[in-house]
């Protein structure tokens, strides 16, 4: 059985989840790994949940990750981290932006946002203020690059950031974990 490292990225449509996974995939290919990435987005552009899955190792077969199989859950939004927890492997790590984005049922008052779940959990959860960091650096849109920096540090993978991306955001992410 080929051993792979499995990552599940999750966020809300428009947050740059897919782009971040792509940048990390390229870095992993450059590092010589076999890599597969799944980016099933469906109607995600309309503010739905976006999941991308990334697996790497000597040889990867199925590109998707089943429940209980993710070594890392990387969340760009706090409630999405919670939603993705069933995918986490025993002993796996969650990295999440502390940002909260309210979905339509929350905005309409039909559902409650789980503000406090991080405090209640026993999982290994690392929280970073990626959105805030990016905002302070001048562009909140770069919060995904902050996350990418943090992930690259966690995995110990060197990422050569293409010049059009914000290197400061990336470095800040590396320092945040």
């Amino acid at each position, binding site marked *: 059985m080929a051993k792979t490292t499995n990552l599940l990225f999750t966020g809300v449509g428009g947050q740059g989840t897919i782009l971040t996974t792509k940048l990390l*995939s390229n870095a992993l290919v450059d590092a010589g790994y076999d890599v597969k990435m799944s*980016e099933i987005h469906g109607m995600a552009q*309309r503010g739905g949940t976006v999941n991308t899955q990334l697996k790497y190792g000597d040889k990867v077969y199925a590109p998707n990750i089943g429940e209980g199989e993710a070594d890392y859950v990387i969340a760009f939004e706090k409630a999405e981290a919670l939603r993705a927890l*069933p995918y986490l492997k*025993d002993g796996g790590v969650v990295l999440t932006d502390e940002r909260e984005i309210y979905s*339509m049922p929350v905005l*309409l008052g039909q559902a409650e946002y789980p503000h406090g779940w991080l405090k209640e959990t026993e999982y290994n959860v690392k929280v970073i203020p990626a959105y805030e960091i990016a905002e302070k650096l001048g562009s909140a849109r770069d919060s995904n690059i902050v996350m990418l920096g943090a992930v690259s540090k966690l995995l110990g993978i060197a990422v050569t950031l293409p010049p059009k991306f914000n290197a400061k955001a990336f470095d800040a992410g590396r320092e945040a974990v």
Partner: protein
Amino acid sequence: MQKQILSGNEAVARGAWEAGVRVAAAYPGTPSTEILENLGALAASPPAALSEGDNLYATWANNEAIATEIAFGAAVGGSRSLTAMKHVGMNVAADPIFSGAYAGINAGMVIISCDDPGCYSSQNEQDNRLYAAHAKLIMLEPSDSQECLDFVKAAFELSEQFDLPVLLRMTTRVCHSKSVVTLGERKARAVKTYNGDWTKYVVLPVNARRRHIIVEENLAKLREASYSSTLNRAENNPDTKIGVITSGMSYQHAKEAFGDTVSYLKLGITYPICTKLIADFSEKFEEIYVVEEGEPYILPSVQLSATVPVVINEPFIQGELDAERIRAAFGVAIVESGVRKAEITTSAPGRPPVLCAGCPHRGFFYALSNRNGKYVGVGDIGCYTLGVNAPFNGMDICICMGSGFSIPIGLSKALEAQGDTRKVFGMLGDSTFFHSGFNSLVDAVHQKANVCLVVLDNSITAMTGHQENSGTEKNLMGYEVPKVSIEQMILSTGLPKERLLIVNPIDQKQMGAAIDTAISNESGVTVIITKYPCALLKDVIKARGTTHCEVDPEKCVGCKSCMKVACPSLAFDASKKKAYVADTANCTGCGLCAQMCKVGAIKEVK
């Protein structure tokens, strides 16, 4: 050779490019869209200089049948051609596909079907492998991006060798997964001479009968040839008692589930299926498993030809397949230790997709929902299908492309027969109008149906990610093209001018008045065109700059009137009892919420 990580769709486009494809046409549809997008990019800026006389023409077509016919025309004419569609698109294209197979081709033709097990973004889970035998198409199934590239090249070769279109059958997980691919170079091919053989290409009964015989002969020849084809692959692992027969993405899931504990026969050519291959493979094992996502399609062939018992599992007809489902179905213990499902007590609130901030459809659906009890809504396939959700509940029925304008004809008759006086509203977008909505509209006018038909024109094919259509000024390759007028098309049916209402859907006075007029028209067709561009169009975003709305907390009385438009940028602070714009980056300042405010608390700011 250069290595890249590509999605299945990108790899198919690249493979077709390398195979010398000259004409490619498609109607967008998830998960197939990126195939033509990538071919369009390759046509617009080729990665290497083209040989003299070589070229690629890539275009969107108004529907899948037209795209298939464009590709067929090119193939018969002598140019290698391709069309790609989502699975339900193949239903639309079935007519030219079935008869085109009888006629055969000249240069190679590849038809790509992208199925969607699990309905990630589709209306059904149909398994288009069943089309291959029905339509007499050679079928190949790739399982990763490298195979996507290699198989599309092989498909062109097989198409020419056996004089049949080839169906390259993919699934969402193949289309939208990325894996490492080694790229090749484009091999330019001379256009084959067009011979205009009407005894082949005109499917008169006399020709069709003869062609049918030839098609069956060609398929039989391929069935033989498939035995030694490298597209099929046996992986015999030492000391294994079970042989697994599989294809496409199911192969990857099977490898994940069983690892090296079994042997594999991975079929690349899945129509026609080479039964001798199955018989020879099976005799080495005690038992055979068939692992296939979707309908039991390979299974009957295996049952007919395997020389040892075939274990029958509960078929994976519904939902996407994964390793865990395979393990459960075949009683395999979980391979990796330490894997368990995380135990969660708190649950996350749902996050359903919604109409974007600034979406023009919101203005229409809000106005319509205000006339509750006076209308019955019939929707269609596009972003506006989201109008079905609360709080709009804008439609009761939506099944397929174009039906938004034809279902109302029948529905209005049925409602009339039971004394239900509500007006039936059909609604579809500009792209869907060009796809098939116009045909339905012609019928509605001709039949004097008592309906209101609404074209939600946002100037782009939006749902699939902004593809050009006949109403846009540029084509897939970026060239300027004539823009076809929806308004003139509608008036060409003879619909009286006063029955065509063109409005800005954000402006609730205009929008509401148009809906009221349509409801009060006692018979015949009323058509409304809502004209307002998609908020996500690059030009629209650029023109908007930082414009957005803000709520003045001094003026806001907390009445929540603005919340009725259900905009994702607008939130309500329950503790302060004030509405506020929570997402100023995505708020477009369209001002729909401001029209709801009775105290003038919402203002546009730059």
